[in-house]
């Protein structure tokens, strides 16, 4: 039997197997933490920062991504505090400004009530969520795709930009949330459902079928 740990997320007690990340724990308990780069069951990278939460420890709080945070016994998590909502909106605002055409980002923005985008629009297809890299490494077990370059030069590519390294399984495309890959599922968050989605007026269309409350 795996060890279980109990933590509190938004004052709700949640019990999960040791080693589970906080995002998975929350989603499993029906608490939606919006997320983007996370692929359920695979190794989280913490790239998009959308799943940001506040961790309370000794009366002090620290903000961090929930997908890369391992659930620990007695942990106290705030997934919808004022700070979290502000940071999350600002993060999604940055994302939308990078790729204003993206349907997924617009849905995400709508869901968490990003009211306006205060930055000049840029015109990017890829927001470097890195899902394709994770899929290539873990689902396809090819490990061909990777990120190249630093900072604003960072981009996704194959070693030496050589197509031969790709096994053409297209596990990556399947998981791309952007419009670059036509056959992608374009789900913004794997499984979705939101505390916010309880507000009838705010439920975007795609949240309607969600299994979570």
């Amino acid at each position, binding site marked *: 039997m795996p060890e279980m740990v109990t933590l509190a997320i938004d004052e709700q007690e949640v019990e999960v197997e040791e080693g589970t990340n906080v995002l998975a724990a929350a989603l499993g308990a029906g608490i939606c933490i919006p997320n983007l780069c996370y692929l359920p069951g695979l190794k989280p990278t913490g790239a998009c920062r959308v799943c940001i939460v506040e961790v309370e420890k000794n009366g002090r709080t620290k903000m961090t*991504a929930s997908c890369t945070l391992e659930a620990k016994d007695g942990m106290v998590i705030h997934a919808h505090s004022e700070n979290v909502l502000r940071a999350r909106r*600002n993060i999604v605002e940055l994302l939308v400004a990078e790729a204003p055409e993206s349907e997924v980002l617009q849905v995400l923005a709508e869901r968490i009530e990003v009211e306006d985008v205060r930055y*000049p629009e840029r015109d990017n297809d890829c927001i470097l969520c890195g899902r394709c890299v994770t899929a290539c490494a873990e689902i396809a077990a090819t490990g061909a795709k990777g990120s190249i370059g630093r900072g604003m030069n960072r981009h996704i590519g194959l070693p030496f930009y050589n197509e031969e390294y790709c096994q053409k399984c297209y596990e990556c495309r399947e998981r791309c949330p952007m419009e670059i890959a036509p056959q992608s599922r374009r789900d913004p968050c794997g499984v979705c459902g939101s505390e916010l989605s309880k507000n009838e007026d705010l439920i975007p269309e795609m949240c309607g079928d969600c299994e979570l409350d």
Partner: protein
Amino acid sequence: MPRLGNLDDLAALCDALGSKREQSTRTVTMCAGTACRACGCLPVAEAVEAEIEKQGLCGEVLFRTTGCHGFCEQGPLAIIEPGNIFYAKLKVDDVEELVSQTLKENQVVERLLYTDPVSGEKVRTEDAIPFYASQTRVLLGDNTKLSPENIDEYLSLGGYTALAKTLTSTSPGDVVSTVQASGLRGRGGGGYSTGRKWEQCRQAPGEEHYVICNADEGDPGAYMDRCLLEGNPHAVIEGMAIGAYAIGARQGFVYVRKEYPLAVRHVEGAIEQAHEYGLLGDNILGTDFSFDVKVVHGGGAFVCGESTALMASLEGKVGEPRAKDVHTVEHGYLNQPTCLNNVETWANVPKIITNGAEWFAQKGTQNSKGTKIFALTGQVKNTGLVEVEMGASLREVIFDIGGGPQNGRAIKAVQTGGPSGGCLPESEFDLAVDFDELYEAGSMMGSGGMVVMDDSACMVDVAKYFLTFLQDESCGKCLTCRIGISRMLDIVTDVCEGCGTPEQLDLLEDLAWTVSVGSLCALGKTAANPVLSTLKYFREEYEAHIEQESCPAGVCPALIHYTIDEDTCNNCGLCAQNCPYEAISGDKESGYRINGEICTRCGICVESCNKKAIVKS
């Protein structure tokens, strides 16, 4: 070299080397650090050696080249003992006189002495130089006493006795307690308690434990770690060996950037020599303790100095940080408990063991103990590496050691902590060099960069400089850092170009907060500090750019204009000849005009005008 089989062998060797050292009646010490090499110290050093031989002083005079002494701008420099005579800016032509007068005749050559820029007077001895006099050179002092290429020199000063003492008479737990009691905090930036880190690492279960020395040093303008590693590599190695014993590691790594070839060479040479004496390798000094150190060359990415990125790079992976909710003391290199410390942190360890925790804890403030080395640069009279006791005020460092402003200008700010730090105004100069005080004021101790700026610096431009650096050095993995920094840079650039708006300042603050709370690693988490600190202390400069479209310091090109004052101009045409962009047109009859569209605000015309007829507005 004989292998040292036990503690007594080491003690005997140290004694022998120590007394030999004392016997030499005369020594000439020249700095041969990277900066002095760039000033041409090697030919001078060769000439001194040759001249000593030529004048028949070989037996009496001991000549050595050392690592950096700190006062780099005065190089090539030499210290002659006895007498502590200090000669600066030496040339090959000076050597004959140095040897015949000073070494042979005991005469000081006045013209080779250093002139203090503050008093304008010649200073005879090294100790009397104001730049050195206000320092507490616990670590840098050793740099001036030994040749880094010869382990015997380190041993002659009692080197490796701290390790010997540790191995033979102290339990690992007691070593950790000593370090903890000393109050030593990490010198790499974060200021985490070294003793606590060691304890956590020691307690963490794992098949292997590792120690790593972080010598990636990538802050612009900082070179403290390079100089320690170059000048006294054995102190770092000895510190690592003590740490390894304390936490139960058998393998250590020095992760050093490959742009530091001399440091790489010296530390590699030092490891080899320590091996030959049996001070590294199996069964050190005949004990059960075995430890080895490997040098790994970093590619020079700033982010690779971050602990998790460094360990990824060490494993041969992309040097990219990971979320640090799981600490590297538990799961670090190869997922094993790993203790990473900065070069200066390690170098402090043998001192603490030798002199005791109380000795160390006496120096400094309540929560910041010991000394700290800074790379003092910018618009002060004296620049170089300075080591001060914690608790010294910024004012002491800038005015007493740095000698105050150049050219009668006024000092406006100091930037501490590198790209993660912030800018503090003159009104905060009474703050102490102390981890917590600097942090609370909105800056950081960081690894020890200290850039002094006078009123010719534009603080918005300074923020822009650091953002540009960080934008390039961010690994780009997480959104808030990659995109957040570039958006901050866009806004600050708008401000510099006079097209910023008051709303943008609010957005900048909101964004800065988002980047600091949202980013994955400390690069992103601290990236907003240069912006936040300049906004806090120099907001009026941002506002002047926005509201009056003017740059008070006259730095931002888009907001300054050069015009020719017709009344002063004598139509000589020199400015037009000198302008590299051909932005000045006219002739001797009708006068000259600057075309603002073509002008790049380089200022060359101002320099070229004998009449000072070109005005900047």
